[in-house]
């Protein structure tokens, strides 16, 4: 596995559960959205028109739209950053059509980078939730009840 993909995988395995446990509702919604996108991604890569993976691009557009909606609904800076990265992700699909000199390899590399930016924006969201003085969406862990069960 290439080092960038390995780094992405490790980051996702750390950041997503952390954001789910320590984040507020906005962070949880983003985690659910990103997990859905990651899980469905491999199944959407088969259909392509020319060089463009149409269904995958459509999925990215949906993710982008949800991020836009989240960033308008919630008062979070990190959502703006993640939405910006996702916008560039969508633009990379458009660039593949408009720029014949752009190779598929370069396009995929750019998408990995934008995905990483979105993921680390989510990590910043946990810190921002603390700065905003809000409680995590998850209830506090009751160690005693765990020990009893």
């Amino acid at each position, binding site marked *: 596995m290439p080092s960038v993909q390995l780094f992405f995988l490790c980051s996702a395995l750390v950041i997503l559960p952390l954001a789910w446990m320590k984040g507020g509702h906005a962070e949880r919604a983003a985690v659910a959205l990103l997990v859905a996108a990651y899980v469905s991604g491999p199944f959407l890569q088969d259909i392509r028109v020319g060089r463009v993976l149409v269904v995958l691009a459509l999925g990215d557009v949906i993710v982008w739209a949800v991020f836009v909606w989240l960033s308008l609904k919630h008062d979070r800076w990190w959502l703006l950053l993640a939405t910006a990265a996702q916008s560039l992700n969508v633009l990379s699909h458009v660039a593949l059509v408009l720029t014949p000199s752009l190779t598929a390899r370069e396009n995929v590399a750019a998408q990995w980078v934008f995905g990483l930016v979105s993921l680390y924006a989510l990590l910043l969201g946990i810190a921002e939730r603390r700065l905003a*003085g809000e409680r995590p969406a998850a209830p506090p862990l009751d160690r005693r009840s765990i020990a009893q069960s």
Partner: protein
Amino acid sequence: MPPRLSARQEQCVRLTAFRTDKEIAALLGISEATVKKHVHEACQRLGVNRRKAALALLDQNGQGYPNDPMAEMARIVPDAAIQGDRDDGQIGRATSALELGRSGRGAGPDGVDRPEPSGARSSDPGAERRSIDSATDRASGVAPGDLDGPRTNAVPGYRAPPGGPIVRLILIAVLAVVISAMLVVVVGMVSDFHRVVDRFDPKSDQGLASGG
């Protein structure tokens, strides 16, 4: 400066402001004797004999934790406007949150759900905690479950993004430009590096290209 209390001790002392020891025990899932022990040790550490005095010291020193209902109420309700039920059943005015600092029943500030007597109450500690949280949310004007309401605990200096949708969309566009500019710089640096490597050793650059 008084010694720092453990989180549990502080929690117990603060909850004595409007809960009995028995209720706190049910809430935290510990025995009543343990609650008394925590409160006693907290009083000892703070060098006071009474719970009220311990509460007063905690408030003076600003010790608090994020889910602290008393700290939340003290911030939300102005000092002179806190209403408390008196033991005789009449509504009385307290001058500050500290005056609610007693462990008897009916000591809760106005707006906070008072639990039923312990016999009629659910034994689920999680439900109790949720009840306190939702009551605190209602008091602060935040809908239950909505964590994006007024920021009473926000760190000083933190500012939420501006509210207008147009402004936010512009900010997103600006951030997209910044990210792409940074990416262009990084890609330029990497390609420069490859060019330099290629100048000295063309084979290694081919290796990088095929292995990357």
